[in-house]
């Protein structure tokens, strides 16, 4: 087994803390959705920030990337993040540009 795993084998407790933090963050998300205190755009921002924090905890601790060699860590994070940023600029300006279609009026849709 690699160095990192051996070094962190004795700190099992931190994984329970991470698990607890993930459950608490999920509960916060659900409460925000139930209360609906924010407008849709602000709600999306907050939920995405919470999701990024949760994914960082999962990648860093559960997937052990925090304990891998810096070269591997940064190469993976930077390459995938760069692709997502490109996707963002590819998709979203177009989504905003297109006029809303005349459908969607009916039961069960937001106004």
């Amino acid at each position, binding site marked *: 087994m*690699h160095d990192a795993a051996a070094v962190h084998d004795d700190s099992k407790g931190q994984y329970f803390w991470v*698990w607890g933090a993930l459950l608490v963050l999920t509960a916060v998300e659900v409460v925000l959705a139930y209360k609906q205190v924010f407008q849709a755009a602000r709600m*999306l921002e907050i939920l995405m920030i919470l*999701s990024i924090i949760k994914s960082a905890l999962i990648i860093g601790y559960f*997937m052990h990337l925090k304990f891998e060699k810096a070269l591997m860590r940064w190469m993976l994070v930077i390459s995938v993040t760069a692709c997502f940023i490109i996707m963002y600029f590819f998709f979203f300006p177009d989504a905003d540009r297109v006029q809303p279609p005349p459908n969607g009026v009916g039961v*069960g849709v937001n106004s």
Partner: protein
Amino acid sequence: MADATLQHNAVAHGASGEFEAPLFGAYSKKVGMWLFLASDSLTFGALLFAFSYNRIYTNPWPTPFHAESIANATVMTACLLSSSLTMVLGVFAAQRGDRAWTRNWLLATMIFGTAFIVLHGMEWSKLIGEGLSIPGFFTALGVAKPAGTGEMAEISKNVPQFPQAFFGLTAMHMLHVTIGVIYLGVVAFRKWFLPVLAVIWIAGALMIPADNVFHYPVHALGLGLVIAAIILFLKPKVYDAHDVEICGLYWHFVDLVWMFIFPLVYLMSTKIT
């Protein structure tokens, strides 16, 4: 230690100096899995961006998930998060050479994963029963479309982007979870898992009615059975701590993807009354 292990192996095989030290300081299987996960994250990234595109483009957007659906999805999320914890404990057990507890923790992870699939399947069946469907899907299958008349049927009729994006994204994730459970079963139980998988597949194929949306997808288990059998035939070894760690990486990734699907698909389409 990975470097040291590789160097030790090179010396043991009389090949000292002939191999470069690993670039990432990790064994090749782990780097391979990380590269696969990086590419798979782009697949899910594209699907999530496509979902978000539809969300912005389609105005007004349906909000069909009531308290019951959100409660169900929250329990599903808790199942996946808990499965990640049991997976980590399984990796620790494998690293200390405790095969019995490795198997136990992997089994616990599989149970959480299966619970997720079952809950998700029930949610799908409920939505489809209420009339939520992809246009042309049931016609293509040659079965009668559920005669939903309420909110879901209206959404399918007026905003077909919603069921298309919802089922497309969640089906892809459910497929990954199913593959993950089979992967864990092979690593934990090796050839003993194959008859269990075969029984589940055959029982599913016989018991799921023809008009159910899972009637055909259940055969993915049969495909998984064939692939698992080929892998076990080619590599009939006892899987070591490295293999457990690698399958753990895959499992955590499945959990990670859900952390974006849950808020984006469910929480952003909530109607609590």
